[in-house]
């Protein structure tokens, strides 16, 4: 099943997908553009992965100061960063390079501590799509990626749906695509993840407890380009839908 959190008629509702419509618990059916889409999960800890696709690693090679990678490059984000489907993300006026990152988002469903790879997927509630923007102008070499680059208000779109894990038995073979104003700019496949979903859960739960509502944004493949105010950025992942986001100028 596909779940959404929406605001409609003055209240926040849980909704499920019903054909190309949304259905509320009371049976009300609504079109996608009738509601305000919220991030489908009220987040706990938000963990994100840097450079988790081999091709993206190559793309960034020039600015990377390390050679061998011995463990996943995980970092944390705050809830201030999240915005829902059909939301807006602000581009700082002075920035010269702001880019999207289409990512498979894993939503944890059970407390996970020292979980082994073979059992890891049992701890997943479901999946969503994240578009985790970066404003590279602000990159500094202290505690990378620094929060001014990756934790800006509204710079991580999430949604539209939380898709139950049962409906997506193999998260390891999903095509990802990003379109800017309808033009395909980024594509990849989760089979190319350097550390796949079970590996990430095993790694993270080895030193920190994961809990229901925690999010793991698994990283992005190559193909990131600058976006500007007015651009419509659509991130698509097989089986998870299409996450739409619009870039606006910071003045708004």
């Amino acid at each position, binding site marked *: 099943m596909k779940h959404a959190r929406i605001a409609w008629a003055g209240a926040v509702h849980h909704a499920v997908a019903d054909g190309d419509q949304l259905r509320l618990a009371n049976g009300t059916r609504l079109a996608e553009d009738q509601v305000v889409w919220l991030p489908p999960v009220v987040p706990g800890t938000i963990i994100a992965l840097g450079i988790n696709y081999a091709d993206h690693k190559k793309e960034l090679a020039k600015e990377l100061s390390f050679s061998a990678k011995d463990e996943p490059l995980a970092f944390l984000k705050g809830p*201030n960063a999240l915005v829902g489907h059909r939301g807006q993300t602000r581009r700082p006026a002075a920035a010269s390079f702001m880019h999207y990152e289409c990512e498979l988002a894993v939503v944890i469903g059970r407390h996970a501590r020292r979980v082994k790879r073979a059992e890891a997927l049992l701890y997943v509630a479901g999946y969503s799509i994240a578009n985790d923007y970066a404003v590279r102008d602000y990159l500094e070499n202290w505690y990378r990626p620094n929060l001014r680059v990756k934790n800006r208000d509204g710079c991580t779109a999430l949604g539209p749906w939380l898709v139950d894990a049962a409906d997506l038995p193999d998260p390891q073979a999903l095509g990802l695509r990003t379109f800017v104003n309808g033009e395909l700019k980024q594509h990849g496949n989760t089979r190319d993840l350097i550390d796949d979903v079970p590996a990430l859960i095993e790694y993270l739960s080895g030193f920190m407890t994961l*809990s229901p509502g925690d999010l793991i944004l698994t990283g992005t493949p190559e193909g990131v380009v600058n976006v500007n105010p007015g651009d419509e950025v659509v991130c698509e992942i097989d089986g998870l839908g299409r996450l739409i986001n619009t870039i606006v100028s910071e003045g708004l």
Partner: protein
Amino acid sequence: MLVISDALGCAAGRAAAEDRPLAAWRSVSGFAPPPIATAYGTLLNHRDALAALGDAVHQPPYKASPKAPVLYIKPRHCLAGHGAAVEVPADADALEVGAQLGIVIGAEACRVREADALAHVAGYTICSDLSVPHPSYYRPSLRYKARDGFLPLGPWVLGAQHVPDPDALEVVVQIDGHEAQRYSTAGMQRGVARLIAEVSSFMTLARGDLLMLGAGPKAALARVGQTVRITIEPIGTLEHRLVAEGPA
């Protein structure tokens, strides 16, 4: 206003509200941490902590001294209360104790001016920001800082009106009763108001968020079996222990 840990309900609430000395409660364990939303930390804010790196700040991988505040996040399972027993991973000889002032946000802070920033503070608490010592600030692994229990804080949040000058507080760390570090928040490159202003320029701090001001120079190290006490008057004293990690 006093914001109280809720673990002991009325008893702890009364103790804090009456400003009774913490000593009266030292035999009581089981304080919950203050109800923090998201915990943000600031690195290298103390001038001497940054200066201790010397010319390394200009060398790779850093290549330049930090411009914006160097921030990080402690995930929710880091939070631990006064009296906590924190597990030290088996492969760590000691933990670094990032003793520091915790700023608890009371009113959402988005793009606030420095002059207005203190009005967004609910109060202050004491933080023991624990890390496995690590050599690099470039892209350190979450394993060093994000472990369960690695942020004991409390014992409570003292209302901001009781802390007239948060930029002139003495922080004293004792390990097993011996003084291991002493510094003043006056040594910060960014004081409380300026830090809030700069952080909130790109990142909204919500009510209930914790922003840590930054640790002092020459942080103390503590080992399994040792007790850490951090005193910041007029807030009080935070105490916790370090224990060996349990079996897998």
